[in-house]
């Protein structure tokens, strides 16, 4: 009971005490939210609510509330009076990480009283972890690391999660000091794919990284090979063999290696080509090493397929390659010390030890030989690096070799000059003076210089020659003077050149040159050139050399000739093309077709041989293709109307005259051909005269004129006005038959074709001018042409231009002696040939050609 009372008393005491303390500590209001964590840059609103009791006590309401952050009053613009008891404050774009916010009231108009206070913590949600990667150190557990992203300013927990396809592993929580990596608790199991990812979480959010899935064996970092050892080979001084023990992981994965080595005192490593160590192995022989050199090696390994990480480097191991014979002879020199013994001197030979890379081993001793002029050599073995010997004043040759365990070096040779070597220096001779410094540890680098006791002008000048000669320039070259003739240092050269009549020109050239180009030379000119070399003491001319510059520069002739030839060729080509295109026209004017008199048939012209008349077959008449320029009278009247009686008469008379003209010939028949077309013209003339003076015949006389201004040497036959009757023609029925045949043939189509074919070759107007020019030949001819013109006018009216051609041919054959003579000559042959085969044409064609073809006999 007592105990109960005590308990009640205690309880009441505590209750009241607590109540009274609560009264004392009870704030006048409170702020919501209580412990805010907001994101940086966001807005935040806090509300302060006053308690009624407090409001009554202090006689305040929400209007009396003012806010402070970190003891600084917030402007009232940020306040909002919600109601009588509550006031809020709003912050936009919070940038401070830690804000102390207090709600205050002003009591009694002057006393500021704190109502409540909170702390605003701001920060950022975690970013997605990136670059998650894991590594499995052999014999250790898997460790993963990642990039956590930006600073969140909040406590952020990273959890590494991992699982197989069939089971999940325990999470790996990061430690506070290493928030970006985590080492899992379980041992890695190779050859099972594991999926790993990271979760980052803080008060503002949670985010997960990308998942990575891998086989831990592909992330393994093996332990480095251990127990690396190095051994050399007595057979080969350039190799060292490495052996090692692989890590235990080699039991189920293949390995590849990196092997590096360096000499003991080197700082950089050389590496064995990786392709030589690309598979699991336990030893490797390194080649191409220097003899008797200490090398340091190290090795590392990784999974053979390159997945995973290189192991750390193994502990270094070193070894020395075996010795080889010294690769170089030691440098040595001598000191000559005066000797008290006459005829002898004391010579001390000194050399230095070979550096290790040349000694290739431990030098056991040195071998020295001394050879006096024409005497046997003497061998000495020396363990030191100097050796003193008394020798005579003669010249000696000393050799030195170094020897190690394997062999001897090559011999170094030194000449010890004779004692009396000094003085005797000659002038104008070049001496090479060499100075070798001797230091305590050996000889230094030697320096040499050429010198003359006294210089002199060269004893011989340089010989100049041309290397290349152009139109306006020439390249000269010469050889350096031999030392023997220089007599001093050649300082410069001078080139003198001149023409035969010109002044000499001098050009100075530096002594280092052996070539010079003379420019501005005159073409096609003989030049004489010589050269002098100068020392400090003077110069000496060399022999003179002559050369001639060419008239044309190289390629100049070609540049002229080639275009000219091309132009000529082009012109010729164009001319040929033109001639080819205009060959008919040219042929007509230059080489008209001339009947071949040799083929004419004289017998047909004989009065005793009745001519055959065959106008029906043109092909037969002019089978010769060359017979193209035959002029014939085209009488187409037969197509439309009967020929005039006058025409028939004229044809008749024509035949008569033909026969009569034969009378003028001198009996070989050719003269009858010479009457050519003239009788036909005459016969046409007779058409008129026949009407008036029947029984009279006008004889034709060939007017002699040259072809193309040539003067013929024969008589000219001119028209005759003789009225002597042609008895033959009256008595010959053949002529009448001819007329009949003509009459009959006029109406035949083949004959018309024949005429047209011939006319077509003369459709050129110049023939008309020829026709007119014929008036100038003679008055007799003028008369003929008067008649001819009349006939042209009579015939051409109804028959057109084709008949004009016919008359033109007639005029050409008859009247234009100078112009048509050659043409007639050609017709002569062709016409005769046709006359042999044919009848009527044979009698006609020779008339056309006869005048020019046969000379008077």
């Amino acid at each position, binding site marked *: 009971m007592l105990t109960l009372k005590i308990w009640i008393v205690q309880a009441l005491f505590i209750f009241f005490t607590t109540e009274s303390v609560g009264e004392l500590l009870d704030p006048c209001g409170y702020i919501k939210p209580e412990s805010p964590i907001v994101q940086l840059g966001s807005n935040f609103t806090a509300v302060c609510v006053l308690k009624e009791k407090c409001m009554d006590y202090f006689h305040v309401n929400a209007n009396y509330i003012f806010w402070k952050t970190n003891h600084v009053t917030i402007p009232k613009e940020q306040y909002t009076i919600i109601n009588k008891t509550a006031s809020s404050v709003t912050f936009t774009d919070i940038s401070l990480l830690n804000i102390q916010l207090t709600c205050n009231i002003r009591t009694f108009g002057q006393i500021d009283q704190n109502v409540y206070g909170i702390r605003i913590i701001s920060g950022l949600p975690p970013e997605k972890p990136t670059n998650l990667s894991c590594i499995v150190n052999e014999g250790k557990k898997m460790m993963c690391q990642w990039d956590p992203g930006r600073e969140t300013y909040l406590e952020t927990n990273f959890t590494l999660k991992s*699982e*197989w*396809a*069939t*089971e*999940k592993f325990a999470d790996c929580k990061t430690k506070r000091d290493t928030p970006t990596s985590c080492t899992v608790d*379980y*041992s890695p*199991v*190779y*050859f*099972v*794919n594991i*999926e790993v990812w990271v979760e980052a979480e803080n008060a503002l959010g949670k985010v997960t990284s990308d*998942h990575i*899935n891998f*086989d831990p*064996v592909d992330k393994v970092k093996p332990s480095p090979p251990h127990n690396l050892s190095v051994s050399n080979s007595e057979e080969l001084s350039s190799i060292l063999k490495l052996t090692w023990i692989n890590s235990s992981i080699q*039991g*189920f994965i293949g390995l590849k290696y990196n092997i590096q080595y360096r000499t003991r005192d080197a700082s950089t490593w050389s590496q064995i080509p990786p392709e030589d160590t690309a598979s699991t192995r336990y030893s490797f022989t390194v080649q191409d090493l220097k003899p008797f050199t200490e090398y340091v090696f190290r090795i590392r390994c990784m999974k053979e397929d390159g997945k995973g990480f290189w192991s750390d480097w193994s502990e270094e191991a070193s070894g020395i390659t075996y010795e080889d014979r010294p690769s170089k002879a030691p440098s040595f020199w001598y000191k000559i010390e005066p000797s008290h013994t006459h005829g002898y001197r004391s010579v001390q030979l000194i050399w230095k030890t070979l550096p290790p890379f040349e000694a290739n081993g431990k030098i056991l001793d040195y071998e020295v030989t001394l050879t006096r002029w024409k005497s046997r050599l003497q061998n000495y073995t020396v363990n030191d690096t100097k050796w003193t010997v008394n020798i005579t004043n003669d010249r000696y040759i000393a050799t030195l070799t170094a020897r190690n365990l394997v062999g001897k070096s090559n011999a170094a040779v030194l000449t010890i000059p004779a004692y009396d070597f000094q003085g005797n220096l000659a002038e104008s001779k070049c001496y090479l003076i060499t100075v070798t410094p001797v230091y305590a540890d050996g000889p230094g680098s030697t320096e040499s210089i050429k010198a003359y006791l006294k210089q002199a002008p060269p004893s011989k000048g340089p010989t100049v020659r041309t290397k290349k000669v152009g139109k306006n320039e020439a390249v000269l070259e010469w050889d350096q003077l031999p030392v023997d003739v220089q007599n001093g240092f050649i300082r410069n050269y001078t080139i003198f050149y001149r023409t035969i009549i010109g002044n000499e020109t001098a050009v100075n050239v530096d002594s280092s040159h052996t070539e010079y180009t003379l420019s501005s030379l005159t073409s096609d000119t003989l030049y004489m050139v010589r050269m002098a070399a100068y020392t400090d003491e003077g110069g000496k001319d060399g022999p003179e050399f002559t050369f001639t510059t060419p008239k044309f520069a190289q390629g100049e002739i070609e540049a002229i000739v080639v275009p000219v030839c091309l132009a000529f060729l082009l012109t010729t080509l164009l001319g040929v093309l033109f001639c080819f295109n205009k060959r008919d026209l040219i042929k007509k004017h230059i080489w008209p077709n001339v009947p071949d008199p040799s083929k004419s048939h004289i017998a047909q012209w004989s009065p005793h041989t009745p001519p055959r008349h065959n106008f029906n077959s043109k092909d037969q008449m002019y089978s010769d293709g060359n017979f193209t320029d035959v002029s014939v009278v085209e009488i187409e009247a037969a197509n439309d109307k009967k020929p005039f009686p006058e025409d028939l008469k004229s044809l008749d008379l024509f035949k008569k005259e033909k026969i009569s003209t034969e009378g003028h010939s001198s009996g070989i028949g050719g003269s009858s051909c010479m009457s050519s077309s003239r009788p036909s013209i005459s016969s046409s003339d007779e058409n008129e005269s026949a009407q008036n003076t029947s029984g009279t015949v006008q004889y034709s006389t060939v007017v002699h004129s040259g072809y193309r201004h040539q003067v013929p040497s024969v008589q000219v036959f001119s028209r005759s006005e003789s009225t002597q009757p042609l008895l033959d023609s009256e008595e010959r029925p053949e002529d009448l038959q001819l007329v009949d045949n003509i009459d009959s043939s006029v109406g035949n189509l083949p004959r018309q074709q024949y005429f047209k074919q011939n006319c077509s070759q003369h459709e050129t107007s110049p023939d008309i001018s020829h026709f007119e020019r014929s008036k100038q030949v003679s008055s007799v001819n003028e008369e003929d042409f008067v008649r001819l013109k009349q006939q042209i006018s009579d015939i051409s009216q109804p028959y057109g231009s084709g008949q004009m051609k016919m008359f033109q041919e007639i005029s050409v054959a008859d009247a234009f002696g100078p112009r048509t003579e050659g043409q007639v000559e050609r017709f002569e042959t062709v016409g005769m040939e046709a006359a042999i085969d044919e009848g009527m044409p044979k009698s006609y064609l020779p008339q056309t050609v006869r005048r020019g073809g046969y000379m008077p006999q």
Partner: protein
Amino acid sequence: MKVLAAGVVPLLLVLHWKHGAGSPLPITPVNATCATRHPCHSNLMNQIRNQLAQLNGSANALFILYYTAQGEPFPNNLDKLCGPNVTDFPPFHANSTEKTRLVELYRIIAYLGASLGNITRDQKVLNPNALSLHSKLNATADIMRGLLSNVLCRLCSKYHVAHVDVAYGPDTSGKDVFQKKKLGCQLLGKYKQVIAVVAQAF
């Protein structure tokens, strides 16, 4: 009716045929869902071969390490004490189909895994200082765990086998020290013998 049965039954067989149907399946697919936490890797068989090689490569060393750690009379009486006389060991048929071999492999590894667990537990008590042996036993058990995962993944992803009935060896917890050691040695001897055959079969 017979005609109907003769036509329908083959049709149903055809419609419901799938890989593995029609062949005896020594497993118990008791409503098991064949779901994995994430898709199985495509290189599973190669990984299984590597795991078997890994186990085969370390089995003899484990055996030696074990009987050496047990002390006499084991090292000198291997034939008597460590002969592979395990009567209830799951069978393995090297010439069977891949699916069958995988199922049998799963049973063997499950059996061995459980037995290794017993041995490890016993050895930590019987030979608490044989750390190398403990480490080797743990490593082998880990490899077997990974092998089981791969085999299950393969069975599940390719053969849709989600569950395999397994048998375990005798519990050694109630046996005396020598029997524990002897059973462990026999088991590791058997393991060394079997794993060579299994590794050769895959």
